């Protein structure tokens, strides 16, 4: 998916990210930039530090050093929930669903700025809550339909298969009305047909104006989806460019084969 004229405004830019666990430098001076409206890829061998970079960007793990700008504002000190509220939603490498809640409740939870989530409101504003819930439910059904989970809306999320969980997680992320979605290996453990479907959804939503940053090992997915790709190896930037450029970069080939 190449945009005719790539807009230059970066929605997310991180520079000089550092994180060590004990003695191990998992992320060592990594940078990444995501342009508004793009689908950006993040690739690298196992253990390269990709998931850790996601954790640093969303502040699930605090960076030792580095700067993260989202929409032009520094967010590296904000708690994860505030980052999510600002419109950057992440998914997890191993899909995490709320097992003992229904698929629908998983979706409704993701809606933002709900009056009903304030402590006093359930007693005093039931009418307003019901109205918001109905609106959120309609939207949830729409999104669930688009990922083929509408029939499962009333099942427990814990009863979904692995691939369905991945879909639910992506659907749930979209339910937050994000500006930027970080997807950690959306295609891992998913059958080829479904991978194809997921890719189609991602392009569809991208055309609706959503920006994506995607970690993926499946090179076909990266080639078909991404405008730009960042390559990470041993916690540092190795290369950056269009998918074709990156794929023919000897350094990248070496990193993948040599590890």
């Amino acid at each position, binding site marked *: 998916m190449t945009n005719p004229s790539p807009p230059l405004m970066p929605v997310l830019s991180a520079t000089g990210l550092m994180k060590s666990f004990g003695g191990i430098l998992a992320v060592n001076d990594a940078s990444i930039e995501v342009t508004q409206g793009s689908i950006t890829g993040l690739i690298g061998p196992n253990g390269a530090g990709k998931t850790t970079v996601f954790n640093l960007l969303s502040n699930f793990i605090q960076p030792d050093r580095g700067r993260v700008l989202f929409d032009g504002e520094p967010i590296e000190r904000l708690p*994860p929930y505030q980052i999510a509220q600002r419109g950057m939603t992440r998914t997890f490498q191993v899909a995490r669903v709320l*097992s003992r809640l229904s698929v629908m409740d998983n979706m409704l939870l993701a809606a933002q700025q709900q009056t009903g989530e*304030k402590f006093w409101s359930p007693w005093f504003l039931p009418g307003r809550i019901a109205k918001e819930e109905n609106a959120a439910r309609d939207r949830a059904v729409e999104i669930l339909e688009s990922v083929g989970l509408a029939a499962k809306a009333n099942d427990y999320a*814990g009863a979904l298969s692995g691939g369905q969980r991945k879909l639910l997680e992506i659907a749930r992320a979209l339910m937050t009305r994000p500006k930027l979605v970080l997807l950690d290996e959306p295609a891992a453990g998913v059958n080829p047909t479904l991978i194809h479907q997921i890719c189609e959804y991602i392009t569809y939503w991208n055309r609706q104006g959503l920006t994506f940053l995607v970690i993926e090992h499946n090179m076909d997915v990266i080639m078909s989806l991404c405008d730009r790709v960042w390559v990470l190896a041993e916690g540092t930037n190795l290369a950056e460019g269009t998918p074709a450029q990156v794929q023919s970069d000897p350094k990248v080939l070496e990193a993948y084969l040599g590890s």
Partner: protein
Amino acid sequence: MFDYLFSLNPGIIGYLVFLITSVAVYGLFSLGLNLQWGYTGLINFGHVAFMTVGAYATTLLSLAGVPLLAAVSIGAVLAALLGLLMGFSTLRLREDYLAIVTIGTSELVRLVALNEGWLTKGAFGVQSFPLPLENFRPTVGTRIGMIVIISAIFGTTLWKLAERCVRQFRRAKTWQHQVSAIASGLLGLLAIRLWVVSAIALYDFRSSPATNGLLFIVLITVAIVFWALERLVKSPWGRVLKAIREDEEVAKALGKNVFAYKLQSLMLGGFIAGIAGAFFAWQLSTVYPTNFEPLVTFQAWIIMILGGAGNNAGTLLGAGIYWAYTALTRDLERLPIAADQVGALRIMVIGLILMVLMIWRPQGILGNKDELTLGK
């Protein structure tokens, strides 16, 4: 045993009033824990601390001349503040820290009650404090009004039980549904009996104003708290709590301030347990530090697990079963063994019942079986 079910003898009625009040007080207490653990997944092993604060604050303040309603409210707020304190120090850490800190706090609170005699009267205990409605002498009209009020509560309970009974009979595909339908029916009959008993006690208010008055207000309190909690846990607010119970990282990733919700849950649970503490004190009519041993916390856990954690109606049912068990094993005291051995025996049997329950119905009596087969 049949006396309990049919007799109108004043002695039996009096004992049943005691039992209903106990069920209500323990039910209220356990509802607080259920909010914290059953809905939010907070491990609170020191729930009795909230009750201690509520009981002491209410009785000491009312002895100092503060009106009862104000005294209970202050007690409950203090209990909630204790929750705030515990939460602030631990909720950002791993969850097992909360378990340890709550145990420690509950023992600390009890030791303060025991040793700070200038404030709490120490081991001597707080005595002859004012009791609600003890000087109330209602006219026939007022008493009938009170009976109408509690009839609304019992009537609603019966209605819900009847609904459940019919629903389960309709669904009756498996024998579990039939058992459940029959159990609902029997519970309904029991509720009618307790309704009659409560009505008689209220009509005969003068026989013992303090206990009958306590019965009246504790029933109303439980009804209000139950209704308020149901409203909360079925709202989007409750959905966030359940999400935190399931996986707090997900809640964070979806923009929920997990720490604030945990604090709210801990504080509201503490507030409710603080109110329960006031009723506990009024029912005992004297308060000693030994009333607040860690055992009380574990009774609340037993009650909640019996009925089904994460289910408010189940928690109240658990309290009922716990006290029915206590009443039915009361006759054991006539056996020629020492009283503390009887006590130990009762606890052993409760342990056995819990073990059987965990094998046969690990989700608790009203818990949802489907939830157990789910993967994480």
